[in-house]
């Protein structure tokens, strides 16, 4: 059940209606959840085998937040995610093949090899902001996109995601406050996975929930279960439509647990094992949703098998595509800083070969 914290500070229970989407969409939602989980596990395995360069930032355990929030957006709505939120970008429509080419530093990656891993975005294709590390650096930018929608009279909404740790940062306040003052069409999602690298919630803020901070900005705040993709979806959809209707921003805190370390190198020994076991057993957004769809008769075991096969094929296709894509040409390293050199409006060189030095 979503808990709403209204501007007057009075918690209220939100709707818990099920089946908020047509069955075919629910099946696609399950596909996205399973694809994200499979991608996350396979990429970690490749990383540990030394077959994946750079870094990985697992979103495992938080797929309900990512899929649920991004599912509530229309194609023209914009998404401002963090490195943890690759699943939200996939949900928004990014091509897995190009995502994987980015991880392997290839020219077909969305940043043409200029950035790696989930520091990705596809503004012109899927309206997603290219991720940056300085969290929550995308929050103020989302204010700007929302401002543009308001000034131009366009019925679009900006949605930004950050983690629990990023809420300690000053610009988090600057962004939410400014969006509230100007009543902008933006939705603020906090993926509270309970650890900022190694730092637990209790060392990040001295209040029980992040959602209740909304009261201080004069906007609604909701706390939802990130293990329940439909709960996240419904809360976000309501917030998105509220924003679209000119009623201003909403803060949504989606609670889950980061099952893995901050990045691939981090064994997360600081995380209490019983906490991890509890979340894996009872708050697994992928398994919970799969069991729910089975129990509702929306899918059969055979349907699940078909989804698994599809997911594996998509990953394998992406992997082959990534490794076949050439590296960027060294001579292009300094191009594309300024608009006028035309690098980004022309086809890039593809002569970089597929073997790195």
């Amino acid at each position: 059940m979503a808990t709403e914290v209204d501007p007057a500070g009075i918690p209220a229970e939100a709707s818990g209606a099920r089946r908020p989407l047509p069955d075919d969409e629910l099946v696609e939602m399950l596909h996205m959840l399973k694809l994200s989980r499979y991608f996350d596990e396979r990429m970690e395995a490749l990383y540990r085998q030394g077959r994946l360069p750079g870094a990985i930032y697992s979103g495992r355990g938080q797929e309900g937040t990512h899929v649920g929030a991004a599912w509530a957006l229309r194609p023209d709505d914009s998404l401002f995610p963090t490195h943890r939120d690759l699943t939200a970008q996939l949900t928004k429509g990014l091509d897995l093949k190009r995502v994987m080419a980015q991880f392997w530093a290839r020219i077909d990656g969305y940043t043409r090899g200029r950035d790696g891993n989930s520091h990705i975005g596809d503004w012109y294709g899927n309206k997603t902001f290219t991720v940056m590390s300085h969290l929550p650096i995308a929050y103020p930018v989302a204010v700007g996109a929302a401002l543009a929608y308001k000034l131009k009279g366009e019925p679009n909404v900006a949605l930004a995601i950050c983690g629990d740790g990023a809420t300690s940062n000053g610009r988090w306040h600057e962004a939410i406050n400014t969006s509230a003052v100007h009543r902008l069409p933006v939705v603020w999602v906090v993926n509270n996975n309970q650890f900022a690298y190694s730092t637990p919630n209790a060392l990040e803020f001295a209040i029980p929930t992040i959602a209740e901070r909304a009261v201080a900005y004069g906007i609604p705040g909701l706390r939802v279960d990130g293990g329940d993709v439909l709960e996240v979806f419904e809360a976000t959809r309501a917030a998105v439509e509220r924003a679209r209707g000119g009623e201003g921003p909403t803060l949504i805190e989606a609670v889950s647990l980061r099952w893995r370390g901050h990045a691939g190198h981090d064994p997360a020994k600081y995380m209490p094992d019983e906490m991890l076991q509890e979340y894996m057993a009872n708050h697994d957004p992928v398994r919970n949703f799969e069991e729910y769809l089975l129990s509702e008769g929306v899918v059969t075991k055979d349907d699940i098998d078909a989804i698994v096969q599809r997911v594996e094929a998509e990953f394998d296709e992406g992997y082959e595509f990534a490794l076949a894509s050439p590296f960027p040409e060294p001579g292009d390293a300094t191009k594309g800083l300024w608009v006028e050199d035309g690098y980004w409006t022309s086809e890039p060189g593809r002569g970089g070969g597929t073997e790195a030095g």
Partner: protein
Amino acid sequence: MATTAKVEAGAAGHGAEPRGKRGDDGQATYLIAIAEALWEEMERDERVYMLGEDIGVYGGAFKVTEGFLDRFGGNRVIDTPIAEEAIVGMAVGSAMEGLRPVAEFQYADFMSSGFDSISTVLGRYHYRSGVPLPVVLRGPSGGYVRASSFHSVNPEPWFAYGGGIKIVAPAFPADAKGLMKSAVRDDNPVLYLEHKWIYRRIKEQVPTDPDFLVPIGEAEVKRAGTDVSIVTYGALVHKSLEAAENLAQRGISAEVVDLRTVHPIDEETVLSSIAKTSRALVVSESYRFVGIGAEVGATIAEKAFEHLDAPVTRLSPPNMPVPFSPTLEDAFLPQVADIERAVEELSAW
């Protein structure tokens, strides 16, 4: 959004009453020239809008935007909370959505309060994503006004270092107008530094052609000379010109090169001046260590070595806070007499 085709009434005589106006002689101060440029660009292109602290009802701390709210309305002249990261972020996000924001910083000093969004997002986003950010950040910079440590800063080296942001710092009203119009029309981020010592002190005839532009990236020789080149920008252009006039009376011919754009630097104009004079004095209000003057000096030493008859010399303040008391500030910042002395020493080689 469609762009409007023409400027309603040209530069000086637009219909609604703006901020300060030109004098009866048609001359415009530097401040008025900047306001005219903004006004004309707002008239020309409805994608252009302004945001910042106290720019609407109050008209800006220095009154650059006085009258804009009445003419263009609250959707295009937006008063923001005191939140510099948010201001830069708003500019970036709205630029991604096709607008052309001009964000005012009340003082250039406070660009440090938005530093992360400027250096991390504004300067690095296009290189990584291919999304142009036609954003202008403008604000009053520089000293000589007894404003002490937090209202006298020259932030240009902070942002030149990271790359991806053009930085202009005009010294004359006409250049100020032409560069502002170029900045607003540029598809890259531009940091536009307005020297507050110049605002109401310097005036001249300024073109009224609504398409009068001064290209970003071009320096200009403001006084021709043969013995020593003074390469400078901002308020120190005026102090260098005064020094050159005094030196001329003592038989020393100094050439004054106004960089106008400090990143990227117009190497060609600078180096051709050195080829003519064989002596270089780089005068900069940004600090000596890692300042703009250091970079210009290094470029001259590297690329004009065969022309030089004397060491490249720098005149710039030490890397310390700008002090308040007149005796301290005058000792701290380069003065006309300091420039004259440095030129005399160079010309003795």
